[in-house]
């Protein structure tokens, strides 16, 4: 069981870091390839002390997320790059179900391109958001895939927002 758990933890780490790399590179289809098409659910949530409620700012299944990616070329977006720096802090593994739960702290930076006054600001990097990934990861057939990702933000002011998932 020990080796199996170690292997699972290794697979979880690799999947989470790969998910950051694909998003950072805006390789949307590569990101979707990491997700379980049948059950994947993605959401961005936070707690608002202003209205004293948990709130959800985005929720999509696999198909919905794919639509967002497919339609990006039709939208006017701030095309500044978002860079996700992640550290996996905790992995729980259920060998019976072949499912892992992972807690990852994530910091997201924005490097300006054309969001505002590119003459002055393009190339400048600033902090965009901090929060956590709370992932459910399937480990069937030796391949890890994302079944669920909750992006729990600590940051509640995200400037002009983004068309990209975090």
């Amino acid at each position: 069981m020990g080796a199996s758990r170690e292997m699972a933890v290794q697979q979880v780490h690799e999947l989470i870091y790969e998910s950051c790399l694909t998003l950072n590179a805006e390789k949307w289809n590569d990101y979707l390839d990491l997700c379980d098409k049948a059950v994947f659910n993605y959401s961005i949530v936070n707690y608002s002390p202003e209205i004293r409620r948990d709130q959800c700012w985005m929720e999509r299944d696999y198909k919905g997320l794919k639509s967002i990616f497919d339609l990006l070329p039709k939208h006017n977006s701030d095309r500044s790059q978002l860079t996700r720096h992640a550290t996996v802090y905790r992995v729980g593994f259920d060998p019976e179900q072949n499912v892992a739960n992972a807690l990852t702290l994530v910091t997201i930076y924005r490097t300006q391109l054309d969001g505002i006054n590119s003459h002055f600001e393009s190339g400048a990097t600033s902090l965009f958001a901090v929060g956590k990934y709370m992932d459910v990861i399937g480990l069937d057939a030796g391949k890890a895939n994302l079944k669920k990702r909750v992006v729990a933000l600590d940051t509640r002011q995200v400037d002009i927002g983004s068309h990209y998932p975090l």
Partner: protein
Amino acid sequence: MSSQSAAAEAQAADNGKQSKQGRARNLAEWSQRPNLPGTHYLDTRVYTDPAIYDEEIDKIWNKVWLPICHESELSAPLDFRTSGVAGTKPIVVVRGADNKIRSFLNVCPHRGNIVMRAPAGNLGEGSPSGNPRNMTCMFHGWQFDATGRCVEIPREKAGYQDRLCKAQMGLRELRTEVAHGGFVWVNLDDNCGPLADFTGNAFDFMATELDTVPLEVFHYQKAVVRTNFKLWHETSREFYHDYLHYHNRATGMLQKGYFDRKYTAFPNGHAATGLTSITYDAYEGAKDRGLTFPGMPLNGWKQLNIFPGCTYSLRASCLRVSVMTPISTDKVLIEIRGFGLKEDTPEERRERILDHDTIWGPFGRNLHEDLLVVQNQSIAMREGSGSKYLVMAREENNTIHDEIGLRSYYEEWSRLMGRLACDPSRRSDE
């Protein structure tokens, strides 16, 4: 014909061609006022001049009714909510033990400290230096009850003898009313008329949706955006910019009846766009809205802009209300709330939230595009940039792309400011 006169004729013909086809302009041409009535264009100094901004705070924001939060944010007795209006004035809103909602300047009369610091809470929770049920200034422990009375001054007699007492030191209370879907409205002018006089009949076409059953907030976001407050509000007042939004083009502009949508201007600068039907499923991955508000047809959309900086937008299943607090000529705090019905089941609420976030969430499709534009506008027309005039001259029989919403805003702006928006150095009564 001599070769010289032929050349002159050719040049004249070329000039004529240019005037029809147009060309880039030199500085003198760029600086000319548009050949339009003064009501149909703006001088960009209305966005950039610090003196005009100060005057706007004084003559507009300090005088009109402003929505600042929703009653569902203070649902229990002694709940409070801090906010701010009109530039940098801090406000605290409190629901009293008598269930009445009151608002106060959130400033201690002793040494000017902020009294309530948290965004929201309940006075029953107490604080490290004060008794539960009161608002306590942590600096010297002065306490105020939920009606604004000063109820505690530590060592009052020892320090002030008979020269000053609690009875004289209450908080500054603001005119407060709860209306139009349960919003808390305040007015800094003690001598203002009632809220109903200010809003007039602007809300009539949305009253059934807003006031049949209680609403409840489910979404709150804010951002300090680098733009002038009017530019942000103007994006809600003109729909010609639907060209910016792929979502609106697909679900609205390309659909039958879109261009028939009526635009109505009301007294005091308010303006509304009437009911239209949106084809939500024309946006790939979306679906028709299954929920609505009382009295609202499925997939309907109505919008009301309240002068000088609030928008109620009711899109079938959810209501978005945006309010703003101007900070400077090129900075504004924007607060956006999403609402459903208080009686929603959890499933209904989830559906409303999904619908809301698709368009208006910080990761939605439209809000990001609007914010991108207003920031870039602000960059392009900052003082000294060379920008001169903006036009608001579309006339389309008061339908959706008519810029009557902008013109009615500046008509009211000019009335209150005593300045012409097309030339703010001139008085409007000249």
